[in-house]
């Protein structure tokens, strides 16, 4: 079977897996913040390099974002989780976490890392458990605060051509909190993922 296409069946499969994973992550986030989290609908895609830049710009119509990425690997599946946080969300986030006082860049970073830990951790764990693997997560890396979205990918000098992307736009009910979680899998992970999911494909 060809590994370089994302046929409907496989896409549905990823969709299903992601649904379960995001549900868990949303539940944890809701418990942390004591606020209802609107369940995101995962968008699964196989993107070329150039398309990813376009997809990222579409995500952030806001001009200023902060972003964290974290690598993960296990059972020959590898990728990165990328959390893009709209800077306009910090005010509401601070209120939800009962933070009082001035919101400095330092506080924003704490909030960003709290959200990243929960969403990335829970989503990856949710996915991994369903396909019976376990991922080790690297240290999270702060891509930047208050940066332009296009700056994010331009720095990357590596040679990857195509990626499996699962985009999860999280929103909080009644709040101006907007963040996007992207799970990016390398192209060579795709065949292994397909294998691991075969029980769902039958």
């Amino acid at each position, binding site marked *: 079977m060809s590994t370089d296409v994302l046929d409907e069946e496989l896409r549905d499969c990823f969709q299903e897996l992601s649904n379960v994973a995001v549900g868990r992550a949303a539940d944890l986030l809701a418990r942390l913040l004591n606020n209802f989290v609107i369940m995101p609908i995962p968008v699964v895609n196989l993107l070329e390099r150039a398309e990813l830049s376009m997809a990222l710009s579409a995500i952030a119509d806001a001009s200023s974002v902060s972003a964290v990425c974290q690598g993960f690997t296990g059972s020959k599946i590898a990728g990165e989780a990328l959390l893009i946080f709209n800077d306009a969300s910090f005010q509401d986030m601070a209120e939800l976490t009962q933070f009082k006082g001035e919101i400095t860049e330092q506080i924003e970073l704490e909030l960003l*890392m*709290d959200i990243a830990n*929960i969403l990335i951790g829970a989503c990856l764990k949710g996915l991994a458990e369903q396909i019976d693997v376990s991922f080790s997560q690297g*240290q*999270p890396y702060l891509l930047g605060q208050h940066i332009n979205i296009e700056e994010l990918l331009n720095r990357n000098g590596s040679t990857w051509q195509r990626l499996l992307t699962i985009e999860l736009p999280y929103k909080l009910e009644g709040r101006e909190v907007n963040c996007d979680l992207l799970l990016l899998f390398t192209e060579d992970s795709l065949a292994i993922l397909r294998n691991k999911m075969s029980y769902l494909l039958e």
Partner: protein
Amino acid sequence: MNTDYTGLAEFHWLIEVMQTVDVGVLVLDLEYQITAWNGFMENNSGIDSADALGRSLFDVFDDLSVEWFKHKADTVIQLRNRAFTTWEQRAYVFKFRNNRPITGVTEYMYQNCTFIPVIGTTGKVQNLAVIVYDVTDIATSKLELKAANDRLAQLSRTDGLTQLYNRAYWEEMLSNEFKRQKRHAHDLSLIMFDIDHFKKVNDTYGHQVGDDVIRAVAEEVRHNSRNTDIAGRYGGEEFALLLIDSDAENALLFAERLRKAIENRRVSTPEGELQVTVSLGVAPWKESFHHYNAWIEAADKALYTSKDEGRNRSTLSK
């Protein structure tokens, strides 16, 4: 008997590895009492495991922020989800000295930490493991790189003589404000001005004095403008100022204040004190400007009216 021995040997080397591995391993119970403390923790804190075990973490590290640590730990325990902290959030969680006390550039060790919930045999979280990584070298390189980049950025946008913004950067700022203005209009005014008969100053007193005059004018600009105003050296003796939240009336008041300040300023030269004056053109923002160039042009036109009408005056654009 034999299996017991093998089991014991295995346990022994596992402990040996944990003891010597070059990252900090710290395990706490749910009351924050220390239940494991490896060699890295012993050596860097100077506290033997015999002295650390069973004690509260907050007694051992009295400078640890209790509130911060508990918030992280409680989230990990309640949500059964790992958490990572980076040196960018907090340079260090545990105050350890730099492990290169002589050649290191920072006094303390920068750390990344991972908080891991440890599930017990009952299926509940029974302990919290904290792994401490020494990232001093990475952190210092990143900080140094950022400082160098900031310095370069600063240099590339500053005019060397006046320390105001140079023309390229000032225009970039104007262009940004112009775009913002198209979305949400605020009161915003532009002032262009230049030094009267500057060529004569140069010809009479030499370029050295010419530079002193430009510097003195720039100083008056800095003294008289607010932090939010955007001031740049536009050309040789021409300056440009973007006044945030200033309507026509305020901008004209500002222009007059600046004009008088410069008129009252004396620049010392080998041949005695020198007085210079400036001519200003003030152009408040108008909806009808389609490009920021049109705005500059409007201010320039007003500036030329000031020149034509005898110099040392301010003119509001029509």
